[in-house]
């Protein structure tokens, strides 16, 4: 029984990792209606920025806000330079542009920092606590706490500030937002900046566990996609719940279902997603799209 709980804790831990990136994906999707394939790579670059700052002697707690600020600016820049030129093109075109961005950023990171594994400072204390024989690392608790805080902050931003209201208006109906005098371009830049910042938090959280190298976020991205799909692509809460579900389900299935095993555990989220979407096509927390003829 203890072992089962241990595996659940393990699953929650990796689920929180997926959720952190899924949050960023959901943000971009709400604003632009696309999936951003480059989200993980942007997070990876942010993490390298943090690593570079720490390596050059800055303390971690100083490097972190600097990194977040750089990421915010970087995200805005990406929107302005890479996404804006195709904003009137079909959505798939924008998606493929993010694929191009993925390839570009990944190769760029390899060129600058090489593919050698880097160690990243762990912001949380080593060790953990023992709960009735189940060991929970501080780092796992830390990630969950940070993801919860990020989610809470996003909620506050969107529901209780006028900037958040404007952002939601743009996400909902950019044409009308424009007619109401909202500078939609700036708001979209803000949205990308925000998503890049959330992504940076994700990268900094996972880097001590996964070890930093240019392909660090590639695997996370796939699971983050799964998390966002499961939770519904419009809902930050859905992204987090989806991430935890995916993490726990694949860990348990991999460990306890022999037919699945560690090699096929990636199929477990697939089955869950399919089952959920067949019942609720908009995901667990997504809004149903109303089709008007």
């Amino acid at each position: 029984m203890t072992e089962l709980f241990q595996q659940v804790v393990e699953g929650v831990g990796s689920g929180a990792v997926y959720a952190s990136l899924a949050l960023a994906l959901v943000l971009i999707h709400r604003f632009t209606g696309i999936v951003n394939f480059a989200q993980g790579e942007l997070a990876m670059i942010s993490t390298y920025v943090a690593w570079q700052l720490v390596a050059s002697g800055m303390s971690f707690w100083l490097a972190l806000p600097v990194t977040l600020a750089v990421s915010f600016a970087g995200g805005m820049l990406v929107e302005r330079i890479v996404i804006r030129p195709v904003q009137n093109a079909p959505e798939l075109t924008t998606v493929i542009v993010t694929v191009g961005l993925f390839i570009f950023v990944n190769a760029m990171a390899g060129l600058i920092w090489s593919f050698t594994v880097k160690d990243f400072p762990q912001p949380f204390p080593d060790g953990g606590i023992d709960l009735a024989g189940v060991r929970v690392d501080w780092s796992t608790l830390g990630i969950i706490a940070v993801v919860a805080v990020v989610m809470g902050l996003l909620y506050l931003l969107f529901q209780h500030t006028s900037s958040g209201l404007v952002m939601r208006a743009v996400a909902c109906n950019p044409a009308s937002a424009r007619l109401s005098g909202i500078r939609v371009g700036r708001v979209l830049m803000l949205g990308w900046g925000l998503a890049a910042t959330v992504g940076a938090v994700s990268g900094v959280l996972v880097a001590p566990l996964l070890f930093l190298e240019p392909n660090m976020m590639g695997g996370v991205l796939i699971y983050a996609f799964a998390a966002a799909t499961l939770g519904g692509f419009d809902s930050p809460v859905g992204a987090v719940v989806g991430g935890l579900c995916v993490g726990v389900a694949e860990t348990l299935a991999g460990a306890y279902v022999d037919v699945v095993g560690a090699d096929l555990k990636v199929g477990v989220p697939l089955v869950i997603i399919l089952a959920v979407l067949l019942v609720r096509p908009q995901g667990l927390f997504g809004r149903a799209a109303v089709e008007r003829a």
Partner: protein
Amino acid sequence: MRKKTTLRAVAAASAALLLTTACNSQRGQDDKDAAADGACQGQQTTGITDKTIKLGGIYPLSGPASAYGTISKGVSAYFKHVNDKGGIDGRTVEFIVRDDGYQPPKAVEEARRLVEQEKVFAVFQTLGTPSTAAVWDYLDKRKVPQPFVATGASVWGTDDNHPWTTGWQPNYISEARVYAKYLKEEKPKAKVAVLYQNDDFGKDLLGGFEAAVAGSGIKVVAEESYEVTDPSVSAQMTSLARSKADVLLNITTPKFGSQALAADAKNAKWNPLHIVNNVSSSATVLKPVGFKNVQGVVSATYFKDPADPQWADDAEMKTYREALRKHVPGSDPANQFNAYGWAAASSLHKALDAMKCPTREGLRDAVRNLKDVKVDMLLPGVTLSTGPDDAFPIETMQLMRFKGERWQLFGKPVDTRKEFGPPAK
């Protein structure tokens, strides 16, 4: 108006086509592969003259396996270094690197480009089992040497149908045998948990290990695999910890190697003897985990790790660092893959030196006829040996244990050929 334009375009295009076909087509030149006279009469001299030798290599410079692409830099640095000193037997080496992104169809395309367009003398190194397997039939048919492929799959040596292809590094089965031998001596009743990468590399090493310990008191009690696309192996490590095994065999590539070492260090309740395979044994993998966390880890090796301070004053290592700095600025000399490339290239140098005829056939025979050839980047005691039916040049490895801030070699170099005989075909 538009009609006329189109018609005119059609006419022009047809004319252009006729013209180009009438001119010498690009075909046909292909068959004019050069042949030697004299003692080596009839043998192919494509890509080699008295002054030059043209080699090609296919590496993943892009895509998921691009971490290994840097091997090509070690190779390039070596050949440039040799060229500065007058070349190989007076021949300047031209080394062409192509990128296959770790995709077999791309590897086939690039192999054809190298052979048919660049007309290389040999395809020196293809990286990875899938890419190598995709091109070796073609190269064999074209009778192009494919020496020292950068993969340790056992199939390169056990196959009889591809005389033009040889391996280089100790094959994964041999490596597994070294660990099995060590365990039989140290922990004859060991219960072993295995973490392995779910591909040819992991399967080969795991299979070799299981075969080598069969019939002994050593039991594999748990196996967990991971995909290279997985973000982490922490769940697998938790599962393995449940087995309470007293040995952990860590068959991973660098990032996952670091993750597994870190997970093992973090788990205070489970302290198995940690054997990490050679691919992940570089100091660059261990350092991020923290040297204090990897004390006592065991591995085996065959070439000098440039990140290991014990080789800091080694003459070859100094040459290597200098050449890399000079010829491939911006690359990291401490990266073991650069040193791997360097070692493989200097091995090829020896083989080229040993050619009786300066022909493709000459190289094929020379590569298959190495006898205890010393290569300075390899560990002392590790040499190259091949035979007509032995395409594994390196089959000797030495065990090492991590202590303080460096690996310490222990025991004698283990010649797996002598100890266990050739791998099963």
